[in-house]
């Protein structure tokens, strides 16, 4: 067995440098690598290009990176709900590349799986298609999209073992499982780090081969962005 455990979060982030491209798992505040984000926000590094579905909120999640002005370019699908991000975007302090969410997901998965490029219908006929190759298959038009190239993938999983095998929980799987192994180095924080042999090989969502470093996250706030309840009948 190959051990992926690192003793602490500093070791987990070893090698990160200013100007690198980072993938960050999560959708909204759900399934974000919150411990890694906190350390990065307080680090001396900056000028990151970040790939993530969203941009967090002002004081939590990816928002911490914008608050500390760590991001030069943001590649994302939906960038609402964060006023500091908006300010930086409107004042051109930050470059924003908007990408259809399914395309963003597939570009991560392509990077993970060694597929350099693929065709997708999303965005045909829109400004997203500008400058991209258009091709017809079965009389429908598609756009050529390339896999992302990233330095670090920062991932959050529910359970993980020392071999790097991961299990996600609920909708927190989102971009986490498809960014794992999609960057040169993949770092995973888990809620529950368990000994090897505790996870059923049949139930593993992401095999350890896609993981470079894994560690037990110190604390998980798991904040809810948009609490919505039903009223009891």
């Amino acid at each position, binding site marked *: 067995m190959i051990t992926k455990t690192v003793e602490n979060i500093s070791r987990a982030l070893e090698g990160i440098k200013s100007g690198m491209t980072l993938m960050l798992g999560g959708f909204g505040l759900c399934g974000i690598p919150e411990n890694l984000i906190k350390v990065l926000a307080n680090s001396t590094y900056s000028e990151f290009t970040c790939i993530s579905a969203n941009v967090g909120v002002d004081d939590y999640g990816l928002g911490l990176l914008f608050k500390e002005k760590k991001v030069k370019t943001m590649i994302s699908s*939906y960038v609402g709900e964060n006023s500091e991000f908006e300010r930086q975007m409107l004042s051109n302090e930050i470059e924003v590349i908007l990408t259809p969410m399914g395309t963003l997901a597939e570009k991560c998965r392509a990077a993970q799986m060694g597929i350099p490029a693929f065709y997708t219908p999303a965005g045909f006929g829109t400004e997203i298609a500008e400058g991209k190759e258009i091709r017809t298959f079965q009389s429908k038009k598609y756009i050529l999209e390339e896999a992302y190239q990233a330095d670090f993938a920062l991932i959050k999983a529910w359970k993980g073992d020392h071999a790097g095998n991961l299990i996600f929980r609920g909708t927190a799987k989102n971009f986490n499982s498809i960014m794992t192994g999609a960057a040169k180095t993949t770092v995973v924080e888990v809620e529950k780090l368990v000994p090897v042999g505790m996870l059923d090989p049949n139930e593993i969502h992401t095999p350890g081969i896609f993981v470079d470093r894994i560690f037990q996250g110190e604390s998980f706030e798991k904040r809810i962005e948009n609490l919505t309840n039903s009223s009891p009948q």
Partner: protein
Amino acid sequence: MSLNKNGIAKRIAQELQNGFYVNLGIGIPTLVANYVTPELEVEFQSENGVLGMGPFPLAGEEDADLINAGKQTITTLPGASFFDSATSFGMIRGKHVDLTVLGAMEVDQTGAIANWKIPGKLVKGMGGAMDLVASADNIIVAMMHTDRHGNSKLKTKCSLPLTGVDCVKRIVTNLAVIDIIEDGFLLKERAPNVEIHQIVKATEGVLIIPENVKEMELN
């Protein structure tokens, strides 16, 4: 009298058929779930990675790991499943989702839709909308017929940056049910007590009016 948002949702709920997997966008589309009869076998997909969404949780029962694409806390029904975002959009792209309901700023008579960007205004992004409209065979747009200034949202040609082309098949507004056919907007139904001339006035694109336009049946 024109419909309110719940009325639009109620009418769209009639479009759901047994066995349909349905993706509901944010806004009016979300309300559609409230009007689905319990006998109907349908499942709701949310593009962040869940199939088989149920009602919102009771207070105290929410789970940070269970949200929908609007980041709202949700519950799941028996038979639900979770999956990653590539699989989720694979379901959409691969035409496994049977019906997509979403809002729009503009729809035109060629079936193009604009719902993500107003030049000069703050752009928040397209989210999953471009994937949804480019992929689904069955797209219903839920929106008010005119904007707050009274301008028609059913255009000859969209003026805003597009979300997708040649995709919208049906529009349900506060005034009417309209299909998009080769020649333009085809008036299918009018809202209760709405006169045809009101719909004509509120529609910018070519409106084709058949001899008999029935009134929507809403319960």
